[in-house]
């Protein structure tokens, strides 16, 4: 009996210890966020001591690596938004259409083929897409537009669109699939066809979830790095011309990381200032998408 009681005691002690260990694992994720914010803020601080936040956000030129230094993030931001916008032009209509198709029309057999294939498309490393954009897509586009430079926003944006398409498709499929069945049945009972039900009842009911998907895809496009670093160029330009060579925020960070900028210089701290701006943009987009999805889930539940 005594050994049994001791065994039970040991088991309970192990239980308490493991509980604490797992709690630690859970808390660790918060530490990562704290680490990211701390590093970005502390390392961007020396930059903002020399350059005011106002100049950073409003100056129209970004030339920290030149003799004539200007520190306006707008050209980088503009490059980021330009490539993201091109990507969304591809991924939005195509992705939402595929999402509707997969959720409402595709047979189970077709789904089991298409879904893993789209996952492969989403799982290809972005470096590979960068290679493809620079050496295949750009030369092809140059046949159509002979004046297109070797590095341009168009090619990078288009390829990024294909990369993001599966994400938009899968998230909007989930949103459409979670529309209550009663809504659909009501529409059918009123004599609506499947197509009518889908377009005028199901998709509007899922619109919140689809918007959340789109915002999440936008955040992904803004933070995408290798495609734009390889194929879009390294020329910070304040332009909305898709045929121009530009530089995105992420590509700038890569450019400085590859160079031999000494640690501690103002040039070095610029990457943390740009990183902080990038982090803020994606945080706002991700949070908006998350809150929207939570609200919808509560509404359906």
């Amino acid at each position, binding site marked *: 009996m005594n050994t049994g009681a001791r065994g039970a005691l040991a088991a309970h002690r192990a239980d308490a210890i493991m509980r604490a*260990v797992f709690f630690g694992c859970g808390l660790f994720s918060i530490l990562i966020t704290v680490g990211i914010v701390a590093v970005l803020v502390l390392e961007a601080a020396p930059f903002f001591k020399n350059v005011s936040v106002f100049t950073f956000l409003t100056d129209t030129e970004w030339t920290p690596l030149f003799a004539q230094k200007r520190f306006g993030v707008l050209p980088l931001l503009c490059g980021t938004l330009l490539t993201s916008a091109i990507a969304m032009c591809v991924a939005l209509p195509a992705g939402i259409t595929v999402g509707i*198709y997969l959720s409402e029309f595709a047979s189970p057999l077709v789904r089991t083929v298409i879904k893993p*294939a789209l996952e492969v498309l989403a799982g290809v490393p972005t470096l590979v897409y960068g290679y493809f954009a620079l050496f295949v897509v750009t030369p092809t586009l140059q046949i159509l537009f002979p004046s297109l430079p070797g590095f341009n926003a168009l090619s990078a944006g288009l390829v990024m669109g294909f990369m993001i398409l599966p994400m938009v498709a899968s998230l909007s499929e989930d949103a459409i699939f979670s529309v209550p069945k009663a809504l659909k049945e009501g529409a059918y009972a009123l004599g609506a066809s499947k197509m009518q039900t889908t377009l005028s009842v199901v998709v509007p009911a899922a619109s919140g979830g689809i918007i959340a998907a789109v915002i999440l895809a936008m955040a992904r496009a803004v933070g995408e790095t290798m495609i734009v670093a390889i194929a879009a160029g390294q020329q910070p330009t304040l332009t909305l011309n898709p045929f121009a060579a530009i530089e995105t925020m992420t590509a700038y960070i890569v450019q400085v990381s590859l160079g031999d900028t000494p640690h501690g210089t103002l040039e070095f701290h610029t990457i943390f200032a740009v990183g902080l701006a990038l982090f803020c943009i994606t945080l706002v987009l*991700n949070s908006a998408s998350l809150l929207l999805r939570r609200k919808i889930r509560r509404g359906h539940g």
Partner: protein
Amino acid sequence: MSEISTPHTPLTRRNILARPQSESLFVAFSLLIVSGALLFLCVLIVQLLIDGLPRFELSFFTGTPSRIAERAGIFPALMGSLWLMGIVAIFAVPLGVGAAVYLEEYAPKNWLTGFIELNIANLAGVPSIIYGLLGLQLFVRICGFERSVLSGGLTLSLVVLPVIIIAAREALRNVPKSLREGALALGATQWQSIFHHVLPNATPGILTGCILAFSRAIGETAPLITMGALTYVATAPSTPLSAFTALPIQAFNWISRPQAAFHTNAAAAISLLLVVLLTFNIIAVILRAKLERRN
């Protein structure tokens, strides 16, 4: 039948017949988009193989980097990538599964749990390049690991941690509740029930998540470059604190060079990366199919 059209089209024989047509049009359009996307993927893979296959010879896999493109090999990069995967497996997998177990099995429904969940969802959306900046300060400078394979592996571990947590939670959620209750009813402690019953049942799902996390980690380039990974390393890492290069970094380095011969090398390195990734993906698909059949 009058020919006046109204905003709400009346139910006529003609438009009952017309309905399936709009549906098949939509299906055809969707399939066109899907085939377009898959064609894009096929062209990408075929083009890379065409570009890279000429370099697929033993000396390419066993050779070290060289200024002469035809003599350059990927051995140090290949070993570097293997080291990185090993470090990710050691750090990210236990941490990720642990966090998932806490959230699914222990966590009370309170603000802290809600905050942890929100935080993980947000971490999953942080651009990987930001993790590179964190790795540069935290591992390379503060911890003093320099630009070693350990710093790189730890940085990648942070990148894929949310992927593992999210997948492992889903796997745990799919384990039937009756299993836990049965174990507890027989007098098992919660940890015994988790260790002996819940985790073994969730293993295939967790494994699928880990494979996806590895396939993400093996192709990640941006965080390693930002962390300061060197692009020219002639030897394979021998200790966790050795300097390293990895397949995607080596490929990126070759892409950035002006000579076409190096682009061939890049295509070959990327082809190898894609073969590994496709293998990972196929394993994950098979595992998942088996899981679904069992459920």
